[in-house]
Structures are given as C-alpha cells and as structure tokens.
C-alpha cells in the first residue's frame, strides 16, 4: 500500500476494523511515518469516545480478586522491549494499537507445551498452530511467532537445569522464550533474560519459574544485531541493569 492508502486505513485501524494482515501492514508503515502516527492518535481519541455507548454496569467484585491473583502469578511480570527502550526520548509508536494481548494463561500453557513438543518440526508448525490459534485465540503474539514458518528455534544450555528454548523470527522482529523445569532461584532472586550484542548484554526482562507451567517471555528486537540470548540469575524483583554474574543459560542466535 502507498502512504495515501495507509492513511485512508487509519480510521479503520482505530476502530479495530482492519483484517489482521492489513493491520500488520499498517503497523509496519506506522513505524516509519510520524504523520500517520499523529493522525492515528486523533482518530483513536474519537474511537475511544464511543466506548461508553452501552448501559454502564460494573463487573462483579469477584473479578477484581481473580485479576489480582492472575497479576500476582509469578510468570506475569511486565516486560520491556529492548527495541522500544532504546528509543526512549525519540519519537515512538506507543499510542498506536495496543500490542496483541498477552493473555490467557491457560492458552499460553497449551501453546508452550506444544512448542516444546514440536519445536524442530518447523515445517509443520504453521498447520499445527493454525489449529491451535483458532482454539485459543488469545496469545496472539506468542502464537504468531511460534506458528511462523520463518521462525527459528534455539535451545539454551548451561549450568541451569531446565528446558528452555528461544523461538524467534528475525524478519518480523518477534521472539518468545519458552521455559519449563527451571529451578526456583530463591525468594530474593529472579531469572533475567538478556540479548547479547558484543560485550554488552541488554536486559529484556525478568521472570520467575511457575511450578508446573511454562514461562513465556515475548521479546521484540532486531535479532540480527545480537549474537546470543542468555539468562542469568539476578537480585529481584527488578533484576540488574547489567549482569552481575555469568549466564546460567545461553544460546547463539547466529545464522544456521
């Protein structure tokens, strides 16, 4: 699509009325077009004004408790995107459409269990996950990475026991760390995920293992910039700006 055509799609995007592929194409354009980003912000304000269109009623109070419990679950740590963080202070895209949701822990667990089973059979992933995606519907970002036939899978190895894989799609700059069987690092510590470029590891985020459930850490980054992905044990709850010790797990991201 041309810039003009993209611009004409902004209103549809603000209403979440574009087909998925159209929305993705527009998002790629938004990455490079400040004019469209500004226009979109105005259109999204207008779209938001439609939100109170129905009879106002609150959810049952029990929902608050459910959500509170979900938020406190160990695997649900807000994560940063190194590609975004590097742009702090420069124009960014963060008012555009919210990132595909990372929701549905059960769906995640299913997806993660499947990726561990089928990782390495990338050719058939697309079909398997097309089915799965229809079933679970929610964890779209992770699923999209797992399902994409151009995604690559590397297994992290090192001193820590566990089944830890990193699935990433260099073209679409999306990746997912899927970890099971990691030991609890202790109450005061967390695992911290790093992308390594030269001698300068960049923090992606921290996570704690969830008993009996896989941990999924979505990562957006320009993967060809990095030589490796690594995990270290750091002081919780926020981890460290630089690794304080050698990584317990590492995998190269280089070409096959």
């Amino acid at each position, binding site marked *: 699509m041309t810039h003009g055509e993209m611009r004409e799609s902004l*209103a*549809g995007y*603000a*209403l*979440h*009325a*574009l*087909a998925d592929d159209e929305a993705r194409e527009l998002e790629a354009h938004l990455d490079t077009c400040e004019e469209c980003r500004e226009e979109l*912000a105005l*259109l*999204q304000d*207008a*779209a*938001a*004004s*439609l*939100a*109170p*269109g*129905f009879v*106002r*009623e*609150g959810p*049952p109070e029990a929902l608050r408790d*459910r*959500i509170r419990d*979900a*938020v406190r679950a160990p695997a*649900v740590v*807000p994560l*940063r995107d190194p590609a975004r963080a590097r742009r*702090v202070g420069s124009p*960014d895209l*963060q*008012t*555009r*459409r*919210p990132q595909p*949701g*990372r*929701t*549905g822990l059960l769906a995640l667990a299913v997806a993660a269990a499947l990726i561990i089973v089928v990782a390495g059979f990338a050719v058939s992933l697309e079909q398997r996950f097309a089915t799965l995606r229809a079933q679970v519907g929610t964890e779209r970002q992770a699923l999209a990475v797992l399902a994409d036939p151009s995604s690559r899978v590397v297994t992290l190895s090192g001193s820590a026991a566990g089944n830890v894989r990193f699935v990433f799609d260099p073209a679409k700059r999306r990746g997912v760390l899927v970890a099971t069987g990691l030991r609890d690092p202790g109450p005061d510590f967390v695992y911290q995920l790093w992308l*390594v470029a030269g*001698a300068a590891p960049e*923090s992606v985020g921290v996570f704690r293992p969830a008993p009996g459930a896989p941990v999924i850490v979505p990562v957006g980054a320009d993967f060809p910039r990095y*030589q*490796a992905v*690594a995990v270290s044990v*750091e*002081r919780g*709850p*926020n*981890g*460290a*700006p*630089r*690794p*304080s*010790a050698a*990584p317990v797990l590492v995998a190269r991201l280089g070409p096959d």
Partner: protein
Amino acid sequence: MVGVAGISWTPARQGAFRRAANHGPRRVTASPIKGGTLPLLDVVDDETLLARVAQADQDAFEAIYTRYSAAAYSLAMGMLRDAVRAQEVTQEVFLAIWRGARDFDPTRGRARTWILSVAHHKSVDAVRRSRTPTVPLSETLTSDTDVIEAAQARVDAGRVRQALQSLSFEQRAAIVLAYYGGYTQQEIAQRLGVPLGTIKTRIRDGLARLRSALPAPAPETAS
C-alpha cells in the same frame, strides 16, 4: 569476562550489584514520582498510574481497575451480551494493561484512549472468535436501514447516541457496525453490498466528524 561459545559477556563490577536493585530495567515511560507508595491514588492522573503499572506497581494497577473496569465490562457486555464472556474479556483487558503498560507513551496519546483501545480490541477479538456477532447482519435484513436500526438499538448512552446522530446515515452505519459490531471494513462492504473504498471513506469521514461532535470525555470514576 566469561567466554561462552565465543560470546563475550562482561559482568558488572562488584558494587554495581546494589545499584542494580534500585534501577531495574530501563523505563519506557517517565514517572514523576520516584519510588515509595503513590499517594492519593484516587486523584493522580491516568498517565501517572500507567507509568507506575509499567513498574509493576500493584496499587496503581488496582486504581486503574477501579477507574476503568466498568467501562471495559460495559463495552464487553454490550458487544457480547454474555456476562461470563464479558468477565473473561475484562480479565484479558486488565492483564493486557498490566503486561503492556510499558508500551504506553504519554507523549503520543492519552492514557484513557490507550486503555479504552485495549478494551475495545479485546472485545472485538472475542466477538470475532465467537462467530456469532451480536449485531445481526443476517441476509434477512434487506436494507441498510434495518441493519443500522438493529445495530443502534444497542447503543444506549445518550451522549454517544447524540453524537452518532450528527453523522450521515451512511457514516453512522459504517461506524456502528465496525465499532460495536466488531466487523471489519471488508465484511461491512460485503454485507451492505457497497465497494470497500466507499466504506473506508464513510468510516474515515464519520470518525473525523465524531471527533468534533463529541465533547471532551468526563474522567472515569469508580464503578
């Protein structure tokens, strides 16, 4: 330095460790409040709360929930017409806010818009998953008028209804079907038998007009 399969890895010097605990990951959004408990959670603005949520502040998250849970739930209820599924969607919305707050940049838009956009997006996803859209677009509806009346019958709030009345009939149809019905532009064009370009134009012009018709939104209050 530790060499791992050719990867150089330079741990921070001793002493950096303590600083690390205070820094945490770099922040995407800037918060005017440093550390400690956020005072008067019920009066700080949404932007500040979201910045705190981005730092995993559960109190700020609860405050956001208090402000926006009714808005998110009402929208989901209106679009899905199912209390259980509306609760599921509301949970998805707030987990997405919890995990995605770092993606919000206050220099690029309002927190309220971002939150309500997350809420709408999740409801749209749920409607599309269900394959039983709540706004009937069945073939038995023979005219645009029927379709639009059916869609609008669910839009209750006076202010929004009034704003929609400021649109042309065709614009209103496209906007209502897209926003409240969860249909794509393509689906609307097919169902109404109108070229896609025409629907895009109606949505674009209609939304631009809504922008000027609607007064500044009142702040969200607790449900």
